[in-house]
Each structure stands twice: as structure tokens, then as C-alpha cells.
């Protein structure tokens, strides 16, 4: 059959794709390369060193920013996965009057510009008199990642066979046991990819955090933003390199898990 023939790309196509990839990876390559540079200035590569990877641990404010970033990422991922999973299953199982309203509200943070989400949360927090800090950061990160967790899970649930649950119930399992032993394992890949999505979104966020952070909860991106004008020292490159590495690892892991799960499910 023609459709399944092995197609090869023309040399022009390969060159074009490579140029696009070069464009996408050039700044990342620069950040990583200069984290190994002996010179303090990010201009010429003078020699290879690991020095900055040790030095960054002595930079207190940088380490604080890293700590805040990780706490916010972990807490917001956990919260959005729990609330999101329960909600996705609930919305799949039950029919209720306001379902469409909830559905539409879910898409608001997906489509409105991030800056609008940021300023509306800032205005709201100051209206109710909440101090800006880790709490407000975590809440705002949950707010933008929650819809993505629910939407990811919902696409999993679309192909989900209800009869498995019914069978478990017929065999005498109660609702909680059915949920834990049948529903949850089936949903596991969806929950995994939802969690990975929430985690990377939190680590990547600049705009919303900008408005909802306090003086003592500076995250890494905001810290770097403040430093760029004055010129950044290579220990920031070293930390950025580790952040990039973390993202790569998260993505590759979730990719592998997803493919394994797909194979198992046929």
C-alpha cells in the first residue's frame, strides 16, 4: 500500500528542519556553554571550568530563589493533580446542571493572556488583604495548571470503559475500593502526564509569578529578570543549566512512561 511506504525527506527539507532547530537551540546552547567558562563575563569562551557549579551554592539569594521555585512547583503540582483528578472523574461520572458552566470556566485561564490572569489575582489578593508570598504564588500556579490537568485527564477518560468499574462493583468492591483498585490505575498515565505538565508550567512561569510574588518569595525566573540588565554572573548560567537539565529529564521520563503505558494498553 502506498500509504505505508517509507517516505524520505528531500535534502532541502532536512536542511530547513536543521536550521529551525539551530534557531531554537542556539540561545540554550549559549547559556549552557558559558556556565563552563572561566571568564566572569559572558563574552568570549576562555577556558573550561566547573567552578560556577560550586560557587552557586555560596550565593545565598540564588539558593533561596531556587528553594522557593522548587517548593512552589512541588506544592502547586500536588494540589492541582489532586483537585484536577477528582474533578475530572466527577465530571465524567456525574451529570449536573452547571456542568457546562464549569467546562467553560476551565478554558478561561487557557485562553486569556497570562498578564490578565496575573493582574486579576494581584487585585483579588489585595482586595481580600492577603500578604503576597509563597501562599499566593502557589495558589496562582495551581490556578493556571489546574485546567491543563483536567483537560489532559478528560481526553484519557474519553476512551475509558465504564464496564470495568461496574464489574468490580458487581464482584463486591465498594466505591472507594473500586476507585483505588480500578479507576486510579487506569488513569495513572493521564495523571502522570498531567503532573508533568503542571510541574513544567510552574518551573517555566514568569508572567503570573511577577504579579503574585512577595519580597521574600522571589523565584528563579524573577531573580534572573532582575539581574539581566546589570549583567549576569556565570553562576546563574550554571543554575539555569541545571534547570534546563531538569526539564529535559522530566520530559523524557514522561515520554517513556507514556509510551510504555500505551504499549501495555495495546
Amino acid at each position, binding site marked *: 500500500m502506498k500509504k505505508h511506504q517509507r517516505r524520505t525527506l528531500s535534502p532541502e527539507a532536512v536542511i530547513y528542519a536543521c536550521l529551525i532547530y539551530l534557531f531554537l537551540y542556539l540561545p540554550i546552547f549559549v547559556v549552557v556553554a558559558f556556565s563552563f567558562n572561566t571568564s566572569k563575563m559572558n563574552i568570549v569562551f576562555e577556558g573550561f571550568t566547573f567552578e560556577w557549579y560550586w560557587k552557586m551554592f555560596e550565593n545565598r539569594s540564588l539558593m533561596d530563589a531556587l528553594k522557593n521555585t522548587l517548593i512552589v512547583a512541588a506544592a502547586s503540582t500536588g494540589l492541582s493533580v489532586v483537585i484536577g483528578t477528582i474533578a475530572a472523574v466527577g465530571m465524567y461520572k456525574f451529570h449536573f446542571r452547571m456542568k457546562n458552566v464549569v467546562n467553560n470556566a476551565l478554558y478561561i485561564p487557557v485562553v486569556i*493572556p497570562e498578564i490578565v490572569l496575573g493582574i486579576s489575582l494581584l*487585585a*483579588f489578593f489585595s482586595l481580600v488583604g492577603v500578604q503576597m508570598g509563597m501562599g499566593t504564588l502557589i495558589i496562582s500556579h495551581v490556578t493556571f495548571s489546574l485546567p491543563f490537568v483536567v483537560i489532559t485527564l478528560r481526553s484519557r477518560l474519553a476512551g475509558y470503559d465504564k464496564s470495568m468499574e461496574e464489574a468490580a462493583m458487581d464482584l463486591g468492591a465498594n466505591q472507594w475500593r473500586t476507585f483505588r483498585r480500578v479507576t486510579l490505575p487506569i488513569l495513572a498515565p493521564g495523571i502522570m502526564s498531567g503532573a508533568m505538565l503542571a510541574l513544567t508550567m510552574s518551573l517555566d512561569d514568569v508572567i503570573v509569578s511577577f504579579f503574585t510574588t512577595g519580597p521574600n518569595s522571589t523565584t528563579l525566573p524573577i531573580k534572573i529578570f532582575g539581574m539581566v540588565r546589570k549583567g549576569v554572573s556565570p553562576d546563574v548560567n550554571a543554575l539555569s543549566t541545571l534547570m534546563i537539565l531538569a526539564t529535559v529529564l522530566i520530559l523524557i521520563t514522561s515520554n517513556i512512561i507514556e509510551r510504555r503505558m500505551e504499549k501495555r494498553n495495546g
Partner: protein
Amino acid sequence: MKTSLKQRLPALVMVGPIVIWLALFIVIPLIYVFAISFMNRGLYSGVVMEFTLDNYIQLLDLEYLNIFWKSILLAVETSVICLLLGYPFAMIMARADKRMKPAMMLLIMLPFWTNSLIRTYGWNTLLRSEGIINNLLLRLGLIQKPLELLYTDGAVLLGMVYTLFPFMVLPLYSSIEKLDPSLMEAAGDLGARRVRSFLRVMLPLTAPGIFAGTIQVFIPTLGYFFISDMMGGGKTMYIGNLIKNQFLSARNWPLGAALSILLILLTLLLMKLYSRVGKMEDMV
């Protein structure tokens, strides 16, 4: 038919938390911003509860109209460049060997998921007047004086295209991928030349992807203030910087709120147009 509370309880427990969350942190804040946009600014910060249309009337100032015009222009330029660069790339990806596809996809996703500020900082390093590109050109003797690459409108455009490119490629790819290649072959068999079959068959059939990608590039461009700050040095003011300044430094919240409402209206308008050609689910 009436359902008892006991029957409704599981639904309430499962869906309740998300309903409360969405109401508290999305719906109420947005309504509040809408309300602020009709209020007066406070003496030092915050708002005074008096109804006024001043904030919207103020937006008609020549100074602000100029900022809107520049922002829309930047968003249009960014979208067009992303589309022109992204369409061929998405076609290549859709045509690539089955075993190559996951790798090609992963390679697009990786920068997409890496912190955008770190990547913008990478461009900053490359483009500064004492940066890598200028240094290289000086050493090669191609230029005598460093070129002004950073802190220009061009640098802002580059930063936007760079950051938003994947938002264009992903929807384009998924709509091209769905396309049945036999349709293009049929057009060819029926005597259509390649340009014609592209314009008459492929382009209309991938319109949902083009629209979805364009919206997903266009809207963020208006709000990504950190790119225009880091790449443009704040020389040219865009709507995102304007909103940020009203809330964080100028402390004129009502004006910032009116600007945000304007952004939301623009977004809704684009969504409405999009809903005629594609499905909401494809936007995510």
C-alpha cells in the same frame, strides 16, 4: 425527578473543590478587574469606589493609541513570521518517517518547556553590544564598531518569534497530520499544479490549524512584557509593559484594569472568529 442529597453527595464532593477554586481565583478576580476599570484611582494606590468612564476615555489618548498600534503591529508581524517559518516545518514533520516523528516532536517541545526567561537571557548574551555576535564580527574584522543589535524593535520581534514559534507549529502539525495525502494526489491527478493544489486543497483544509496557531501566537505577544523589557530595553512601550507599569509602578490600577478588559475583549473576538472554523479542544 428529584434526587436526594445522599445521591448528590459524591458529585458534590468531587466537583465541589474545582468549582470553588475556579470561582474564587478566576471568576471573582476577573469580575473585580472589570469593576475596577470603572472606578477612580486612589491617592497612593488601589481604587476609590466611584463610578467613572474616565479610564476608557483616557485610552483614546493619542499616546495610548500609538502604543496599541505598535503592539498590534508587533503581534501581526510575529504571527506572520511564525506562520511562514512554521508551515513548511510542520509539513516536513508530518511527512517525516514514522520513527523520526516522536524525536522531532520532542526536539520542538524541549525548548518550549524550558524556562522562557532563561532562553531570552541567552539571546541577550548573544546580541549585546559587547556580546558574542558583535565580538565575533569585530574579531573577523567585518565591522569596526559594535552593531546595535539588542534594545531594538527588531530584537523584540526576534524574541517574540523565538518564544512563540512552538505555539504555531503544534496546531499546524496536528491539522496537517490529519490531512489525507490522497487528497493532494487526487488534485494532482486531476491536473492541478502543485501551487494550485496547495492553495485550493491543502490551505483550506488546514485552516483550523492556521487559525489556532495564529491566535496562540497573536494573543501572548500582546502580554509578554518581559521579552520587550529584556530585548527592547523598555525603549518602545507595548501594551503588556503598559499594563504591568500601571499595576506595579505607576499604580494606576483602574487604567491598567481598563487595558486588561480591552485585551480580554480582543481575545474573545478572536475566539469567536476561531469558533467558526475549529474546535475549542484543538486550542490546548
